[in-house]
């Protein structure tokens, strides 16, 4: 089995040579702006994600980090700024992009939600193959085989016929991750994936994310788990008030922050 066909491995862009992780830009975001009514949530956000990189967005609540993530997936439409996935045309939000352009964003990324958002009327397996079969039009047998391999590796193959309400929060979130993986996206988006979990269930989910990171999946994650971010992220982006205040490797941003606001934020979290 070649690397691209393995459901457990991150996909490589079609028609391009496999390059070493870290050298090719997957996503480029420039000057993203977004308001909700009178509140400007994103003032001007720049972000670069390279293949195989794990980018952690941190910051106080209301800083706009979830909005950035949702904008990358077309779940929010910014008023201005550019989102450019490698291999596609850049989307310039200032020139009111078409519906099709926005939907195109979802070919590149898939989201794992804080509240899991599994389909309650479908079994675990049905949840996972829904996208591959209905949207990507892959054969059911093939999608099912891939789904089972993915479920196997997160330890949930035996739950394939269970309905979401029969699972714990941690199990539901692992299904949520598998549902996103099954689409073979270039970029995985995690929106506070452990924030609605009971503390004792957080570990399993973080472990899965850690493994995905070490296998070379490219991901952007919004998290409050600074400890986890410092272990797993290649790049930490600290946001506050709709701007990127500071970004860099965890050893800089989390250990030796230069900006006062970053210092205050870390202080408050560590003092608890």
């Amino acid at each position, binding site marked *: 089995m070649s690397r691209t066909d393995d459901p457990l491995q991150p996909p490589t862009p079609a028609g391009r040579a496999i390059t070493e992780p870290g050298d090719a830009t997957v996503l480029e975001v420039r000057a993203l702006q977004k308001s909700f009514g009178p509140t400007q949530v994103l003032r001007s956000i720049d972000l670069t994600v390279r293949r195989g990189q794990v980018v952690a967005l941190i910051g106080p609540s209301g800083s706009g980090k979830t909005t950035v993530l949702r904008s990358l*997936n077309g*779940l929010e439409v910014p008023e201005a700024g550019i989102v450019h996935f490698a291999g596609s045309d850049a989307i310039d939000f200032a020139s009111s992009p078409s519906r099709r352009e926005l*939907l195109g964003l979802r070919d590149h990324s898939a989201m794992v*939600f804080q509240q899991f*958002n599994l389909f309650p009327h479908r079994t675990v397996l049905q949840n996972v193959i829904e996208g591959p079969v209905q949207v990507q039009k892959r054969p059911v047998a093939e999608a099912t085989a891939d789904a089972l391999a993915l479920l196997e590796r997160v330890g949930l193959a035996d739950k394939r016929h269970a309905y979401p309400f029969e699972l714990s929060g941690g199990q539901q979130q692992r299904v949520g991750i598998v549902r996103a993986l099954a689409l073979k996206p270039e970029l995985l988006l995690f929106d506070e994936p452990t924030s609605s979990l009971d503390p004792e269930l957080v570990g399993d989910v973080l472990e899965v994310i850690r493994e995905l990171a070490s296998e070379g999946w490219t991901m952007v994650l919004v998290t409050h788990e600074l400890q986890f971010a410092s272990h797993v992220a290649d790049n930490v982006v600290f946001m506050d008030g709709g701007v990127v205040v500071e970004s860099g490797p965890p050893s800089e941003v989390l250990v030796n922050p230069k900006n006062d606001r970053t210092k205050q934020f870390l202080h408050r979290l560590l003092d608890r």
Partner: protein
Amino acid sequence: MSQDTWDLLLQSFLPLVEGAIRGTIPLALASFALGIVIALGVALMRLSKVRVVSGIARIYVSIIRGTPLLVQLFVIFYGLPSIGLLLDPWPSAIIAFSLNVGGYAAEVIRAAILSVPKGQWEAGHTIGMSRLQTLRRVILPQAARVSVPPLSNTFISLVKDTSLASLILVSELFRQAEEIAAFSQKFMVVYIEAALIYWLICLVLSAGQSVLEKKLDRYVAH
């Protein structure tokens, strides 16, 4: 009870049941099926962001809910011929009842669609589904579960409302009862018998509702 009364009850039972089987039940089923299709369309129009579209749906619902069903029935059967539209009793009744169900059920379906959490739309979108696909495969199945109890009520009301069709010459259960009562002059006995048959039909429907709810319940957390 006198022997005469018993005889009348027995003699009229079959004609009444025939009226139910040939009139009331098919009329209710056809009108409900059509009505739900109308209601789904109207509900989606109501949810449209285009003002004109949602406005039209709003006016439709308002008219249906704000005027008596009997008047709607008479407008279609007795009124339309004056503008050259002559409809037979059956089509008139089905049109009137399904338009009526369409108005009431539209509100039920709209509320049911709105009751599905926003995260379900987003989950559909993130796996690449269009809005229509998400509606069909994610939202409506969940909305259906929520709308079973209120729609059952609508259906049960409709079964009883079909008795109004007797006034536009549809030969259904109540029209049969009227004819037997007028002929025998035993109004109390015949109308009570008719009432009991309506009741029986509604009991069966209520039981069906419970079965359906249990079936749809299986994936909902308790």
